[in-house]
């Protein structure tokens, strides 16, 4: 049963090698990784017990910033687009965050939804600037100075996204275990005590919110260049709901769960849409119901149960806090 411990590494390796066997799958996997980055942002906020039903606004803002940069400069490098996307959504997160971190729970969720719908309406209605519901085309950027053919660019984008996902996972994992991350958890469990430690809960949540927005922005920039077009749908509330859905599917509050959930979600969606075009949403719904009923801690919870079965009395480990 020792192999269970290596299961995540095996899965990562499988994802990395899959496009070599099935080249067309890399587009779908890149979409999954882009959404996984945005879901990671949602996961950061879930650590504080806050659910954002509007995080797609940062995803869309970043995607549109990539489109504007490509159109404005007649081309751009991928690295610049990713960085600009993150900065744009991070800055937007800082401004919106100043307002929303004053609220908790349903009010926090609904305010995020309201802001996202404002952005969606602007993108949809400002036709002369944003192209309205037709959106904007995003050309193929250079890849660290190199002009690549379409297939080579898609492959490079996929592996870059995989590296970015790994780096984001590591950073967020470290962040959540740092004093700031632990203070973020404390917002969920005892905000009063947090204030009596001299820590501003709002400030902690604002930092997490900006990080969360920047992650969603990174995902948005990836999806913009992957799809080659951005539309207001990227910021629609259904997209925000999708991110929350995936976070629960993967294991609410878990870093790896964000990507596990996003990969399964995209693959189920793709195959369900291909095989049962009219009812694929229903299939996804049943998958989520199954997860909630039989594995409420998502895929990561299932994996942790497997590890516990494989090594019930592993000595020498300090007890991990509940999440």
């Amino acid at each position, binding site marked *: 049963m020792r192999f269970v411990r290596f299961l995540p590494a095996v899965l990562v390796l499988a994802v990395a090698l899959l496009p070599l066997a099935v080249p067309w799958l890399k587009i779908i996997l890149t979409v999954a990784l882009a959404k996984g980055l945005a879901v990671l942002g949602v996961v950061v906020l879930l650590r504080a017990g806050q659910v954002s039903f509007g995080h797609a606004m940062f995803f869309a803002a970043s995607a549109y910033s990539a489109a504007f940069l490509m159109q404005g400069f007649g081309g751009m490098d991928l690295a610049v687009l990713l960085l600009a996307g993150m900065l744009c959504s991070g800055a937007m997160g800082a401004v919106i965050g100043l307002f929303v971190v004053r609220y908790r729970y349903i009010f926090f969720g609904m305010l995020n939804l309201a802001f996202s719908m404002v952005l969606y309406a602007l993108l949809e209605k400002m036709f002369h600037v944003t192209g309205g519901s037709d959106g904007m085309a995003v050309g193929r950027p250079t890849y660290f100075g190199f002009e690549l053919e379409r297939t080579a660019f898609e492959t490079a984008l996929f592996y870059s996204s995989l590296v970015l996902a790994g780096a984001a996972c590591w950073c967020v994992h*470290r962040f959540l275990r740092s004093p700031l991350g*632990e203070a973020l958890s*404390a917002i969920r469990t005892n905000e009063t005590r947090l204030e009596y430690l001299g820590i*501003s809960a709002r400030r902690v949540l604002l930092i997490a919110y900006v990080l969360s927005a920047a992650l969603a922005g990174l995902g948005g920039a990836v999806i913009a260049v992957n799809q080659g077009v951005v539309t207001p749908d990227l910021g629609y509330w259904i997209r925000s709901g999708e991110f929350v859905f995936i976070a629960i599917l993967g294991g609410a509050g878990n870093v790896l769960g964000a990507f596990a959930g996003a990969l399964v979600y995209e693959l189920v969606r793709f195959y369900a849409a291909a095989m049962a075009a009219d009812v694929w949403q229903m299939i996804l719904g049943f998958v989520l119901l199954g997860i909630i009923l039989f594995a409420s801690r998502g895929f990561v919870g299932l994996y942790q149960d497997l590890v516990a079965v494989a090594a019930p009395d592993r000595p020498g480990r300090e007890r991990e806090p509940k999440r």
Partner: protein
Amino acid sequence: MSAILLEARNLCISFGGVQAADGIDLDVRDGERLAIIGPNGAGKTTFLNICTGYLTPAAGSVRFRGRDITALAPRAITRMGIARAFQSPQLFHEQCVIDNLLLAAAARERAWNPFRPLRERPERDEMVTLLELFGLAEHAASMVDELPEGTRKLIDIAVALALRPQLLLMDEPTSGVSSLEKFRIMDLLVNALAVQGVTSVFVEHDMEMVERYADRVAVWSSGRIQSVGPPDQVLTDPAVMRDVIGV
């Protein structure tokens, strides 16, 4: 005489028709252990709430080391050196004991490196030593919500002490603890306060505890201070015996 650490002047606050503080004047001296006694609803906890910024008085002021803290938020007051332990322990129940203390230590040190895990903080040994002062080192890795109420109360106080405050305000530190245990707990607590050189104010209902552990006692009655002085004088005052002790 020791210097005055906390200075409350003419504090007034009411809730509906109830006057919870009606011209409270009180000094807390550096290094002392001051007990606050009085019947339920007399305004004892309200006084702690005002001193820690949870409530803003309608009138009056609170000064800490000469600085006005009346309108400051709890976190600002905490940073100045006033910590608080609650009647009902306020802990992070999804984290283990040592993490609760380490978070307090990180807050004290303003250590917010986002990539350095809390558990790798250099204050870890200091926090274990603090737990040892309370006889709780064996519970360092235990989850807070698995421990009995009395132990959680001590951890709540340990978390407050992890901030290295100059003044610690405690609301009934031994309530909910068996009568056999409370003297042991109070001995540990008084020892920890002495080791750290912390001035303390504690609300208490048990006169035996007050007599044994307080340097001074203040008697609250309907939002006013009825009497202040050494325990042997105050607790033998006929008016206090009649109104508060019920003898």
